[in-house]
């Protein structure tokens, strides 16, 4: 029995302090205003205070902490991307993640499970090898494995996928992990709060005050704040905010849905992704199978659920795991994914002085939470793009210099 629990139990009154302070009033002026109280916004606040000593910061959250995509994703953390820039960026994130529970003194249930990306065609195998080779080059553990390896690791899976699209092999990424998504936001929130950052929930930004190309402040549902710097970290709401400052981006919002089964005794200890079958699945410590697919095929700014999604997903799940026929789907939900044309984020400075963007997180935002906080806080503090994010700059589109993550898109997705 860990000591912490003992202390908790034996104390007469519950000793835990509140995770976050509730502030009654908005301040009049802050050095930095962060829009969005999800993982990214809170992480940026945390690192601004911790790494850069900038503490006169507020985080404005329209709804509640971690209530957007932070609390809706399927919690996968990995760094087996395709481009050197992407791999380096996400690898930094994985490294930060690995120590985060200790940093926060909060158990994030960061659980290294191993991550399989299945290849059902030879062209997918080529992509997997490409990723593996780039990953290895950069010191990230990834390898192409054959059917026998997969069979040993996941003996339950039907490698022929009911005959529809037999698995040729997979990219195996040993550091692939899952973590408690809510706790990541709470940990960053608590850490930021402890360092003086003010967090306001149920506070919506209604206008951004820009004059002569410079940010001067923001109007909110609770009044005006003057500030020279605004960081926009709002994922699915990005186009609403960028519209306020007149910046056009390629971001299109498409829902990403997910669902869970009723809890069953844990048997699946790894993370399985199949691009061809549009399935990703892991099993939580509660025993729920957490499943997702690809984004919905059209733009929509809401988090409605569709039946098409569960029908398609379950059919493919049963192709892989026929024995789940009698297992039951308990709940489905959706998040709004901010998709970009090259499957990479848009980060850094913008044409508006003092307006910084952390967006284009599509379906891969959760895993980048720590590194986004770190690099965006640097970018805001120094008014200079952090070197890890230069490849993700907004101007890459007008320069026709898209990121190479799109490279894999033409093959086997």
């Amino acid at each position, binding site marked *: 029995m860990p000591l912490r629990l003992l202390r908790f139990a034996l104390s007469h009154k519950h000793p835990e302090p509140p995770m976050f302070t509730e502030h009654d009033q908005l301040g009049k002026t802050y050095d930095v205003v962060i829009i969005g109280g999800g993982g990214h916004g809170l992480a940026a606040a945390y690192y601004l205070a911790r790494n850069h000593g900038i503490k006169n910061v507020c985080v404005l959250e329209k709804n509640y902490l971690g209530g957007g995509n932070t609390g809706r994703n399927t919690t996968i953390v990995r760094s087996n991307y395709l481009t050197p820039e992407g791999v380096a960026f996400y690898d930094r994130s994985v490294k930060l993640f690995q120590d985060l529970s200790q940093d926060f003194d909060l158990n994030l249930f960061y659980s290294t499970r191993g991550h399989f990306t299945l290849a059902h065609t030879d062209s997918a195998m080529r992509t997997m090898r490409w990723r593996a080779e780039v990953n290895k080059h950069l010191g990230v553990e990834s390898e192409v494995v054959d059917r026998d390896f997969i069979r040993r690791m996941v003996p339950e899976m039907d490698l022929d996928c009911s005959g529809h699209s037999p698995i040729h092999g997979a990219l195996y990424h040993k550091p692939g992990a899952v973590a408690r998504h809510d706790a990541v936001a709470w940990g960053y929130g608590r850490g930021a709060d402890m360092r003086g950052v003010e967090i306001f929930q149920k506070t919506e930004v209604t206008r951004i005050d820009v004059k002569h190309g410079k940010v001067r402040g923001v109007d909110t549902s609770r009044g005006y704040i003057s500030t020279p710097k605004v960081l926009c970290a709002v994922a699915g709401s990005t186009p609403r905010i960028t519209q306020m400052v007149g910046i056009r981006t390629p971001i299109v919002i498409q829902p990403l849905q997910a669902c869970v089964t009723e809890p069953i005794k844990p048997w699946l200890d790894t993370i399985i992704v199949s691009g061809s079958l549009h399935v990703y699945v892991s099993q939580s410590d509660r025993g729920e199978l957490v499943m997702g697919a690809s984004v919905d095929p059209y733009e929509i700014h809401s988090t409605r659920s569709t039946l098409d999604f569960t029908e398609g997903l379950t*059919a493919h799940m049963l192709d892989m795991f026929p024995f789940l026929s009698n297992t039951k789907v308990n709940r*489905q939900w959706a998040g709004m994914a901010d998709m970009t044309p090259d499957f990479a984020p848009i980060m850094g400075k913008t044409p508006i002085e003092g307006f910084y963007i952390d967006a284009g997180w599509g379906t891969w935002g959760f895993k980048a939470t720590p590194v986004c906080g770190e690099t965006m806080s640097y970018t805001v503090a120094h008014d200079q793009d952090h070197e890890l994010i230069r490849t993700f700059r907004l101007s890459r589109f007008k320069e026709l210099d898209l990121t190479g993550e799109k490279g894999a898109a033409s093959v086997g997705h």
Partner: protein
Amino acid sequence: MTDLSNQQAASNAALEKNRMARQDGEWIDRNQPLHFVFEGKTYSGFVGDTISSAIAASGNLFMGRSFKYHRPRGILSMSNHDINTMMQDDQDPTIRADVVLAQNGMQLRTVNTFGGLKSDRGRYMNCLSRFLPAGFYYKTFHTPKWLFPMWEKMFRTLTGLGKVNFETPRRYTAKRYAFADVLVIGSGPSGLSAALAAAKAGAQVVVVDENVRPGGSLTYDYGGMDESPALLGRLLSEVTACEKIEIWAGTLAAGYYSDNWIALVDDQRMTKMRAKTVVVASGSYEQPCVFRNNDLPGVMMASAAQRLLRRYAVRVGRNFVVLTSNSAGYRAALDMVSGGASVAAIVDMRPEGELSHWHELAAGLGIRILAGHCIYEAIPEPGRYGVSAAVVKRLSSAGEIEQAGGVTFSCDAILMAVGYAPAANLLYQAGTKMRYSHEIEQFVPDLLPESIFACGRVNGVYTLSSRLLDGERAGLEAAQKAGYVVEQKRVDVPAEPSGPTHPYPIISHPKGMNFVDFDEDLHLRDFYVSVQEAFDNIELMKRFTTVGMGPSQGKHSNMNAIRILARLKGKNIDEIGTTTARPFFHPVKLSHLAGKGFTPERLTPMHHRHQELGAVFMDAGNWKRPEYYQIEGLSRIEAIRQEVRSVRTNVGMIDVGTLGKIEIFGPDAVLFIERMYTGLFAKQAVGTTRYALGLDETGVVIDDGVVGRLAQEHFFVTTTTTGSAQIYREMNRWALLWKMNVGIVNATGYMAAMNLAGPKSRAVLAPHCNIDVSDASVPYLALRTCEIGGVSARIMRVGFVGELGYEIHVPSEKGAYVWDLLMQEGQKYGIQPFGVEAQRILRLEKGHIIVSQDTDGLTNPFDAACGWAVKMNKPFFIGQRSLKIAQATERKQVLAGFALAENYRGELPKESHLLIEAGDIAGRITSITDSEALGRVIGLCFVRPDLNEIGRMVQFRLSDGALVPAQIVATPFYDPDGMRQKV
């Protein structure tokens, strides 16, 4: 089973301790006894029994253990939220015993015990409960870091419910679509009344109910009298007489989706119902009262005991205490008495008690009634498997417990009747705005979407006569909305005098164990912890405590959680709000959602020929293509090499029918093609073909093929196999946008195609073709229409594989005929069919790219060394303007040919192996093959432009890290001047 023993079994089952004599309206068939095993013990019941009712009939109420503390648990609702009595068998890991029908021969176990129900080793968790408050796991187990995996392993042993059996077979179900004018969800009094009203107005109505029989509360809430069954009988006979109404019992409305799509799930399958309008008459869930030990087996909702009594003739106790705040509690007490039990007390939490005639009826039976009291705690029987008494204390006028005094009533069951929460999940999913009504202490619909209607309890209407009226009103409105003319008869539904629901049925106790959420084992203190730690809005509280996240999705816990939070924050309930209700209403099997899982597959007309020839197939998009043809005694690679050899030396034939084939007609055809592709076509002569490279608007290569000109205003275009559908679709859009006078015909499925290639191909073709196929008559890159064996055909002299060859297109229905003809003729020359793999080698030897293998999602034509195919000085083509921008920037990589040393005998590098220069990534292999024709390993690679010099030495790195030297060489590798194809 013989009749005699059947009778005996029936009488045995009837003799169960808590089974009563046959009664009207019961749902069991006493002529059909059954037996099943639960936790090693055999139970008897009847067809129609649920698992829980049959077990309860034996007198056993202890049926499971809780999720976290492994406390003994029993029946709670009998209405599909009894997660604590969830069971498993070897096929189904999560069986809800309260509603799943018992079947003869079932072998059931609990889901959450270690070593059986009674001797569960997990029961010691109960002693640790004070160490395990809400969110405890966030605060520990993470230091030291290296120990966490061990802790996690332990959690993963403890958690989860049933165990899935990996031998469970895949079940394919026959999903279907259905349509209705009005879908009524719920067949209680308001639902049936709505259905009748809508049908009378002319609408086609489907009524669904998750219970196996219709009737809702009329099937169990008798109040000791027979009005309910009589009313139900009347309603059902009217419904049966009405041919516009179908009742689908045993059918769950599992989820609402936009445009009135409702997932209806029954035992066999899912029906996707599209209704013009929906009447939600889904009723309500009875809610528990939170008091210490409210989770003991024997403490249950009053409605659960009534269901057991009326539907299954099971009396769950002999001596009841009824805790209530409404008349339903009195009715339940009367029902128990009419079932032969005694009621020790009715504990009424309202200061004034019950003011209606139900009070007189109960008092008249001599039942002790304590108004202004509550149950402070339930006392377990020795062994804790049941209840032995209820400790009752007085409530002050402010609703506080008066600690002094109190009465203890011994009893073997406690019924809770303290109110309801609306079963509004589907209303929420449909986008209904709900508001909290302080009059009836319940959320009620405030603003309904325009084709959704609500009636009955879910609408806050509880008085039986009003429910009928409310149903009629909703039914008429729904029919009208669905387009039926309704005579303007306004139905007035009287306002409810007061609601049955207690505003705060929560009794604190210093020793806790007063459960709010039975799925998740959350007691009152957990909510205090949550608020203290600032998880003090409903969504954060849900995530921190996990309230409502269990399998029953908060049906019995969300409302109390909201009440607790409101009180702790000093807010009213409207300010707290609710969490989002999402599908599914109850969990749905994967097999039901998946159905048959249709996966369309395309075959070329020659598919069966390939099968006969021993083809091994591969997937290409949704097509099946021969990868190669198996030859006895040869390995895969040997067989492929033989196919290659045959093309290079004799003749081979490949089925290329999967290529996209598009015909473009009309006055603007040539202009259109000029705009679609990068090359020049304006001056293309009739009867010729040209290479076609297609880009997207960003200038990235997306497709290639051949443009053939059949007539001045008639072109024939081929595309890649996987690109064809999209290219055809986009062509149509561009034609619209550009307002072009063209006719675009997708001939992909209409045309079979084969490529006859090799030095002897002409000899094979000539005898069957009605035109001269000599080089003079059909030169390289020519296109001709002709007849082959009497079949009208198009032939193109194209050189993808680098030999004399003819790509032959014929109508699909005649593809196999022409294939046979040429194969037969080819016998004389040793013809071999060849597959995709051989073609890949052949084209690579020629240095031809395959779009998407030798290009990726960012490759423009300059990167792909296809600049020669791009005419930048044309007026316009898709991607041109972007290429102009790209042209100004530095190339990051270009495609180049490479070759390994002729004597290289080491491990062959693979596609995607990296090109390493001075320790950096400087490219990668896109295609590679060990070419027999060239006697060395050749391939294409992306390479950094500064390394792209003919003759330059580079290095590829194998997976194991070894470096393989290679040289950048010119392409084509084979027959660089193309002499072999121009003969």
